[in-house]
């Protein structure tokens, strides 16, 4: 009655081996590495970059242990910190400012393990040091900004149709346009409702004082907020890239918050400065009169003509641009890739707000045949993204920038146009910094408390339950192994509370074994045969184990749903620990007992203390 079918042993064996394989990477430690990632979102991580890095290192005679590519960039594993610094210097020199080169640590997991996706557990900031910021996006400001640009749009539209109004203003997030007669107000409303369908309109007042009140629909508000958050995320990504942080995390949290985690960063002042900096976009005219070869060459040697500035375009060619600014990025409300309907080439569609559109119309009318430069000013340096020739007057605020090589470039440039500035201001509402020595100490403490606790429990169980205690301890060991393996597999973030949860999970998991062992004793006391007692003990205890674990699971899941930060870290491990303990306490311990006793014909006495 206490024999398991072969398939159950095979199942347990397989799970055990898989658990072992995925637990092992945690013991290999980390080796110094250099991480190369693109500084601009328009650059891609590709085979060419890999080749370039390899060539650079070979040329400089720097030996490296490994070279591989992942989503964030190229990583080079090196033997020691000396070659790490050397490699970093060489790569910075050779790759230029298009790429950020950061010092990093990568796991020393052997290749065969990496090939099956076995990685060490992902440690949270409290275990490896770094900074955590929680940023709140000011959505009211984003909506105000949108309403403000609507004011400009309305003004343009009404002027174009020659509808007389005597006042237009933004009241909070509502735009109010005043008219002298109801007929004009109605006419205006019909026109605006056709052109700006995102808004809902209402006519108020009477007796020579009529007004059209336009407010954003809930859908439009939601869209603006989503857009603002997305753009802020993108901008933060770009800025953090520049810090050269290995594996930064920039994530949305809730509807209006962004979490930024920078592992290993200690200089919080610099991090904050970069997060808060604004990049800007400018449109200026190319100085066509001074764009001959001779002047350009002179300019490059330092003799820049008066009233002009010299910049390089994306291919590195010099461009002389007038100092006066036509438009700034503030006037851009949206940018996206598209296709030119006439010749099928890739373009970028830019939408300007009302005032921007007006200025743009005038400038393009006066400058047909000339080039217009779009500049991105970031990190104190300026770059010409593109300098297209103006073919005709462009009105209506919808601008098409042609001259894109392909659809990818169009996507990248529209991203850059959007990503230059923040859509809405942000404020740091939470900041947590953990020093690296603190992180190491936390790991040590967590691991120590788990191991000492485990050892104490093991001794007590074996003393109290003898052979059955030994079986319970082995099952508990398997439980720990599986828990670590699953955490490594899922790459869930392990924090100090998570480590505490591992310890607690072990303390609670032993309950199932105690229940079983007590049951077996009781059955023996009632005069049952050893085999029958084992059988009944496991069977009867199972219901209790199930009930008690499900209730604990409910608590764990609620913790997970409503917890943030340390609570969530705790909950993940707690829930997983309950699941692995069910498996190990019921299946594994029974398999061991079956092996011990199940195949004996006659048992005089069970060694259960």
């Amino acid at each position, binding site marked *: 009655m206490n024999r398991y079918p072969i398939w159950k042993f095979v199942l347990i064996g397989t799970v055990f081996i898989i658990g072992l394989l995925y637990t092992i990477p945690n013991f290999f430690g980390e080796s110094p590495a250099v991480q190369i990632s693109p500084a601009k979102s328009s650059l891609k991580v590709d085979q060419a970059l890999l080749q370039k890095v390899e060539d650079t290192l070979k040329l400089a005679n720097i030996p490296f242990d490994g070279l591989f590519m992942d989503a964030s960039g190229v990583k080079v594993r090196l033997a020691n910190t000396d070659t790490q610094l050397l490699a970093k210097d060489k790569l910075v020199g050779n790759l230029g400012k298009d790429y950020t080169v950061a010092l990093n640590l990568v796991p020393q997991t052997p290749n065969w393990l990496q090939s099956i996706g076995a990685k060490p557990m992902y440690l949270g900031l409290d275990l490896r040091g770094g900074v955590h910021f929680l940023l709140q996006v000011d959505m009211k400001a984003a909506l105000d900004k949108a309403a403000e640009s609507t004011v400009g749009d309305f003004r343009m539209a009404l002027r174009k149709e020659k509808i007389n109004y005597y006042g237009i203003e933004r009241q909070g997030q509502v735009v109010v346009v005043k008219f002298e007669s109801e007929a004009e107000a109605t006419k205006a409303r019909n026109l605006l409702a056709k052109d700006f369908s995102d808004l809902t309109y209402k006519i108020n007042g009477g007796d020579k004082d009529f007004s059209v009140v336009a407010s954003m629909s809930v859908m439009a508000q939601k869209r603006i907020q989503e857009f603002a958050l997305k753009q802020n995320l993108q901008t933060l990504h770009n800025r953090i890239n520049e810090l050269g942080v290995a594996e930064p995390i920039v994530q949305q949290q809730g509807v209006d918050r962004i979490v930024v985690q920078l592992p290993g960063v200690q200089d919080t002042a610099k991090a904050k400065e970069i997060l808060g900096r604004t990049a800007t976009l400018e449109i200026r005219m190319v100085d066509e009169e001074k764009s001959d070869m001779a002047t350009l060459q002179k300019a490059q040697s330092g003799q820049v003509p008066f009233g002009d500035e010299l910049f390089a375009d994306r291919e590195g060619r010099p461009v002389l641009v007038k100092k006066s600014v036509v438009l700034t990025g503030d006037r851009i409300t949206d940018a996206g890739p598209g296709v030119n309907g006439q010749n099928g080439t890739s373009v970028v569609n830019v939408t300007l707000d009302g005032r921007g559109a007006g200025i743009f119309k005038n400038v393009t009318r006066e400058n047909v045949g000339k080039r217009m430069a779009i500049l991105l000013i970031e990190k104190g340096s300026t770059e010409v993204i593109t300098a297209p020739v103006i073919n005709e007057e462009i009105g209506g605020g919808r601008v098409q920038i042609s001259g894109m090589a392909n659809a990818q470039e169009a996507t990248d440039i529209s991203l850059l146009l959007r990503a230059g500035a923040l859509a809405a201001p942000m404020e740091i509402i939470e900041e947590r910094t953990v020093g690296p020595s603190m992180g190491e100490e936390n790991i040590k403490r*967590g691991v120590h408390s788990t191991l000492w606790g485990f050892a104490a429990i093991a001794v007590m169980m074996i003393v109290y339950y003898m052979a059955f205690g030994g079986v319970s301890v082995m099952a508990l060991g398997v439980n720990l192994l599986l828990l670590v393996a699953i955490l490594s597999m899922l790459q869930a973030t392990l924090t100090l509370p998570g480590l*505490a949860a591992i310890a607690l999970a072990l303390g609670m998991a032993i309950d199932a074994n105690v229940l079983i062992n007590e049951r077996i004793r009781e059955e023996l006391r009632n005069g049952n045969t050893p085999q029958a007692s084992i059988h009944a003990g496991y069977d009867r205890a199972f219901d*209790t184990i199930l009930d008690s674990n499900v209730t604990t699971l409910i*608590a764990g899941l609620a913790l997970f749903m409503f*917890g943030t930060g340390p609570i969530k870290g705790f909950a993940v491990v707690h829930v997983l620990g309950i699941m692995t303990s069910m498996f190990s306490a019921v299946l594994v311990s029974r398999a061991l007992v079956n092996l011990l006793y199940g195949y004996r014909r006659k048992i005089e006495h069970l060694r259960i203390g």
Partner: protein
Amino acid sequence: MELFRIKKDIPFMSYGRLTTSISLITFLLAIFFLLHRGLNYGVDFTGGTVMEVHYPAAANIEQIRQVMDGVGLKDVTVQNFGSSQDVLIRLPVKKELSIAQLSEKISGALKTADAGAEIRRVESVGSQVGEELYENGALALLLVCAGIMGYLALRFEWRFAVAAIIANMHDVIIILGFFAFFQWEFNLTVLAAILAVLGYSVNESVVVFDRVRENFKKMRKASAVHVIDNAITRTMSRTIITHMMTQTMVCSMLFFGGETLHNFSLALTIGILFGIYSSVLVACPIAMWLGVSRANLIGDSEKKPKEEEVPVAP
């Protein structure tokens, strides 16, 4: 080795009045201290800044206070913790300074005063984040209770669900009472511990209830009191051994886990101690008074075997 060889059932239920009175008194005391002293909330809840600084030599607390005064920061508490080289600095939320500015100001001042100062941990939390925590914490507590009650009502009976939840809340309130009485800091990890206790404590009740249900099936002639007494006595050994094991683990965290896990394991310790008590001496009497009987417990499960006998069409 066997520590608990109890031959006769211990008449726990006859002490019901006594044990529940003791519980009621502890419970009321806990509520009194909660209302009177309140919880000593950490920055996670109230917002503010906590900074942990390590000095190469023994830290001069008085000097650090002067440095803080020098940069115009008032209401700063500076205290040693752990060792004489470690200092904890606390600051409430400042309206006029943003979080970023505040932490910068402190760390800048400390570094200029003593270049050896190593800032090991900074936690700055805005007040809005703290406020949300109350809501989410309360919501989590409510959801856990509802989930547990639902499950118990489904698997057992509503009387057990009510008894278990009362016993459970009793544990939680008493832990909070301890934190209020001693003014230990109540932070996020303590909240996690309390919610874990909620799951753990109900675990205890379930084990006993499970035995009660089983006994009702086996001991057909016995009274409810007898059945419950027997269930508690039979599970006594398991209850004590299990708690001993879990407590061993928690003690290990208390001793080796350092400052961060200290209050966490403290909350768990109280929770475990009262968990044993309440699951046996609070939950059971309440269930009994609510009128648990064979009829309302086994009614369903006795029908089940009959259903299985219905021949299944091939």
